[in-house]
């Protein structure tokens, strides 16, 4: 009896599916370190969507540096959704009229379903005794961080250091500028991207400390063995909020708004949050966060809004001739 019900159900589903199933394709333009995360998310979402609607969703991925991905979408890459490293890059897409300017208010938590922070990755046993930001300026300590002008991750690194200096007792902009200037004098290699910097540090053995996304640090720890590297949490760091958004113009053209919307909301669902935590991104959901508490120790963070938001930060720090250029040589 029970068997027959199941059989009927299967036949029924198959018939229903064949009667109205359609194939939907979504293109997600993302940045580099999310490769592994979205592979899992896409699979889980496609299965869920199929179960609920009977349609087959295929999600294609395009990965690259966050800024480059934003430019590709501006130049016509038909991405239905963008999942980038920082809000400024999505703003740039919005500035070209491809999505509403208030995109960050359309989803919860500043449209960032998961967060990360900037941590220190040091060599086994922490031979240089690095515990907090000031230790990075000690003579002989070499710091690896990519160039903030070419890497979204590196901008978070810069701002984390800036914010630390600003928030010290008696901290002000002049002191913060001196701090980051001294910090970048300790940098022997400026890679163009976050993965490149990780390779320089882990594979080439350059430097004593790598400033990295927490998710990248945890990933390299897993890939390269726990005894190779240690993670050091600084006393204060920045809350990195990688945003996600629907590209209005493209979904309207493709007729994919409904599924794209469900896809991004899936990132906030318990299942999505679980996958993100598994891939070393800090989940927003308190429940999932509790489950992964051992992986994500509590860290004291500040947000980009305290520095005036991304647009202001970009203009103030990273534009041509702005603070990052001023503290470097040759200007």
């Amino acid at each position, binding site marked *: 009896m029970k068997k027959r019900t199941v059989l009927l159900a299967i036949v029924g589903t198959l018939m229903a599916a064949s009667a109205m199933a359609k194939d939907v394709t979504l293109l997600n333009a993302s940045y580099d370190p999310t490769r592994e995360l979205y592979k899992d998310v896409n699979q889980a979402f496609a299965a869920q969507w199929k179960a609920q609607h009977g349609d087959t969703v295929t999600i294609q991925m395009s990965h690259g540096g966050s800024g480059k991905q934003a430019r590709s979408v501006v130049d016509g890459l038909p991405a239905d959704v963008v999942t980038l490293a920082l809000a400024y890059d999505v703003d740039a897409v919005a500035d070209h009229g491809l999505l509403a300017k208030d995109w960050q208010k359309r989803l919860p938590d500043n449209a960032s379903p998961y967060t990360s922070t900037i941590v220190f990755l040091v060599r086994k046993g922490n031979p240089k005794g690095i515990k907090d930001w000031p230790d990075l300026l000690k003579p002989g300590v070499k710091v690896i961080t990519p160039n903030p002008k070419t890497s979204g991750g590196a901008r978070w690194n810069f701002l984390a250091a800036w914010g630390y200096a600003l928030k010290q007792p008696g901290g002000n902009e002049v002191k913060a500028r001196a701090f980051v200037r001294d910090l970048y004098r300790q940098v022997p290699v400026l890679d163009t991207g976050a993965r490149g910097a990780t390779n320089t540090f882990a594979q080439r053995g350059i430097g004593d400390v790598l400033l990295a996304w927490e998710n990248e640090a945890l990933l390299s720890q897993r890939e390269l063995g726990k005894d190779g590297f240690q993670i050091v949490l600084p006393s204060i760091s920045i809350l990195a909020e990688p945003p996600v958004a629907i590209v209005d113009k493209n979904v309207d053209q493709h007729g994919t708004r409904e599924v794209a919307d469900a896809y991004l909301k899936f990132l906030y669902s318990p299942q999505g949050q679980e996958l993100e935590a598994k891939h070393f991104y800090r989940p927003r959901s308190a429940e999932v966060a509790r489950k992964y508490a051992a992986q994500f120790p509590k860290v004291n963070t500040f947000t980009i809004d305290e520095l005036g938001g991304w647009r202001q930060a970009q203009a103030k720090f990273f534009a*041509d001739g702005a603070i990052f250029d001023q503290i470097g040589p*040759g*200007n």
Partner: protein
Amino acid sequence: MHRRVLPGFGISLGYAVSYLGLIVLLPLAALAWKASGIGGEGLLRLLSSPRTLAALKLSFGGALLAALINAFIGLLVAWALVRYRFPGRRLFDALIDLPFALPTAVAGIALTALYAPNGWLGRWLVPLGIQVAYAPLGVLLAMVFVGFPFVVRTLQPVLQSLDRDVEEAAESLGASRWQTFARVILPVLVPTLLTGFALALARAVGEYGSVIFIAGNIPMRSEIAPLLIVQKLEAFDYAGAAALGVVMLSFSFLLLILISLLQRWSNRWEERAA
């Protein structure tokens, strides 16, 4: 009436011109058009920045030096491959093209892995104070690597067609080996050598993928001009990026014109000598 060997001159000329226009001139025109957005003052500021100048100096200085090294080593290698028979010659010959086939990023990563302080070669060189990876020397090395096949491949056919009788004649007339090389062989090779030099130079100037991995990319020290372009693109500064592109292009164009003038001069000199 003079008859051409191949028919359809009009069609082929038309095809050549429109193809050239579509593939080469149109993108260049678009580049110039984008660059015009920066204006005269912006261009002046860009060109007077010490950082831009340092990057241009590294890119062009490095490329010139790399092409020179390639011209010299390439001549030796081409000579050895054409004139001598040794075991594994065909294999070596095939290996020459490898830098063409390799994605440049792979070349950069391989070179960096070799010369990094913990690499096979780097671990011996760095204690001696020779830093290759993450230094200007690394930039030069990557440029030599990617430009190497050009000189060898342009010289080989010319060396092959070189008549040995001429050398024998020179020798029988009492020329020393050096005189034979300098006054008989080299003059024939110079135009081709210049072609190979120009190709290697052009390739090295525009090289990005491999250099970026080994350079270290420190402003004023090991930052190449194409990286500055990428940095401007990342900041959505299309006009600035295009302007720097046009500057690089103009420099390269001047250099290539200079080389082709040299070539014509050496051809004429040779004709007169003959």
